[in-house]
């Protein structure tokens, strides 16, 4: 079985978010990590590899620096890493990003494609389903459990108040939730392999069946009209009182606001 996992290098929000003077994110000043949902997707692929035997290829689109997450994935147990990077791909929205990744994946053989549900920088959850549409294969989003049965995949798909057990014929694309599993750590042997691994680097010329008009900033239907740091309503009162006084304080406020 051949599995392709799409991963993204994202700024780590836990380290605090830094802004440029114009209100846009200062990505250079922030630490980066492998996007958590993607890491769960990678772990799911590695478990299928452990259970059924599989070749796991990780693909990322980004700046040359994004090679770091490919090496991390190899250190966890992925077999191959492909970096898709090119100046003309920059500024892509989800349409252009999914076109780019689909164009890269058309070079590969695959039974299963796994992506994270969403990345913590954009939170759109769009790229996975859009890749599946471009490739003409079924998508199962929000996967909480994945099994293989013959030429099909059986997935528990989460909704608000229920889950569906779905069966799809492979090839198929699955988007993974961070809750799906607890990703494994890199192994010392894996780190050694990752250090020596050759990362395949592809540019625009390697993308299959994608028109220039669908790539990068120019190929993005959505355009940013305005971006800013969020204005919050700000703090109200803060008191430190003993418990009895605290209770009286809350009661007074609830009365003043006609809640009670």
């Amino acid at each position, binding site marked *: 079985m051949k599995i392709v996992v799409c991963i993204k290098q994202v700024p780590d929000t836990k380290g605090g978010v830094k802004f440029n003077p114009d*209100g846009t994110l200062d990505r250079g000043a922030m630490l980066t990590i492998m996007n958590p949902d993607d890491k769960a997707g990678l772990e799911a692929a590695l478990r299928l590899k452990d259970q059924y035997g599989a070749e796991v290829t990780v693909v990322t689109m980004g700046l040359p620096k994004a090679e770091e997450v490919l090496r991390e994935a190899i250190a966890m147990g992925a077999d191959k890493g492909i970096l898709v990077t090119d100046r003309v791909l920059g500024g892509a929205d989800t349409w252009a990003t999914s076109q780019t990744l689909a164009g890269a994946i058309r070079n590969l053989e695959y039974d299963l494609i796994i992506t994270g549900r969403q990345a913590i920088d954009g939170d*759109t959850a769009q790229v996975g389903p859009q890749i599946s549409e471009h490739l003409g294969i079924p998508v199962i989003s929000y996967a909480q459990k994945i099994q293989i049965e013959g030429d099909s995949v059986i997935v528990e798909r989460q909704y608000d108040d229920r889950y569906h057990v779905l069966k799809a014929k492979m090839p198929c694309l699955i988007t993974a939730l961070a809750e799906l599993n607890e990703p494994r750590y890199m192994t010392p042997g894996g780190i050694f392999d990752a250090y020596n691994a050759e990362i395949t680097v592809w540019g625009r010329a390697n993308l299959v069946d994608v028109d220039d008009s669908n790539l990068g900033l120019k190929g993005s239907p959505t355009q940013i009209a305005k971006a*800013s740091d969020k204005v919050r309503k700000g703090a109200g009162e803060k008191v430190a009182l003993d418990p009895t006084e605290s209770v009286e304080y809350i009661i007074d406020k609830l009365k003043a606001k006609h809640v009670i």
Partner: protein
Amino acid sequence: MNIQDYKGVFVFAQQVDNVLSGIALELVGKGKDLAKDLNTEVTAVLVGSDVKGLADELAEYGADKVIVVDDPELKEYRTEPYAHALASVINEFKPEIFLVGATAIGRDLGPRVSARIHTGLTADCTQLDIGDFPINPVPGKEQLHNQLLMTRPAFGGNTIATIACPDFRPQMATVRPGVMQKAPREAGKKAVVVEFNPGFTPNDKYVEILEVVKAVSDVADIMDAKILVSGGRGVGSPENFKILEDLAEVLGGTVSCSRAVVDAGWKPKDLQVGQTGKTVRPNVYFAIGISGAIQHVAGMEESDIIVAINKDETAPIFEVADYGIVGDLNKIVPALTERLKAELAAK
């Protein structure tokens, strides 16, 4: 694509088990506002099996027109037949705006449809306006009017961006549930109902549903609650949520929680408030033992009154709380419950 051919505001009227989801009515309400600004109509697109009966409810909440796509293949939500239904409606009726709820269904369906018809899609919007793009005139660039300006939080709520889709139609957005207001119901109001079936022939993209497992939950939906008593990791244990439940009961409220509580397995996911949970805007939100990570705040900051109780005076929750109490929740919460009981009994 001739952009002038695209007219009208369409919304996806999500239903589950032949009951309209709250978001369907919220989108009709918002769609009506946008349609007014554009001097056009709002059309609800109702997709399912045996769902025609729901058209009247959509009309009473403000839909001018309802397009019904009714087919046995559409009984339970599946990506492919639903995407085919919406893409076919868009190709046939050419709306200028198409809104979908940012639910577990809409966030799967929206991207698939936008990719099929080649247009932009803005995710998880919290504000929608009609305006100019660029917002301010730029020399050498035509300023377009009557554009949909879609505002959304990004980066876990740290930044906010306004997005336009000037060159493609429809302008598509998914909209966070609980943010837009539904219009007042006008009993007896009717809409023009149009039935449309593009034909559904199963292919490899149709997945098979082996089983539907419904979560057994008689818990009230936290998005409908007027008073929420919400607990975080600081509550300490699943057993200790009892003191929050007691407080909620006295006030006629509902218990909700932070992501840390769900991750620890103390409470089910449907009670989670925040970026990856639900957006709530109750009259009163008690944040008890919740530190107030930005992702949590993104889901509750629109509450009318926020009361925070936390022993850590530096907890970020105090930055959004109207009333912050630095103290021990184990002492304050039970005492508050008792005091409220006495207060309410005296009335």
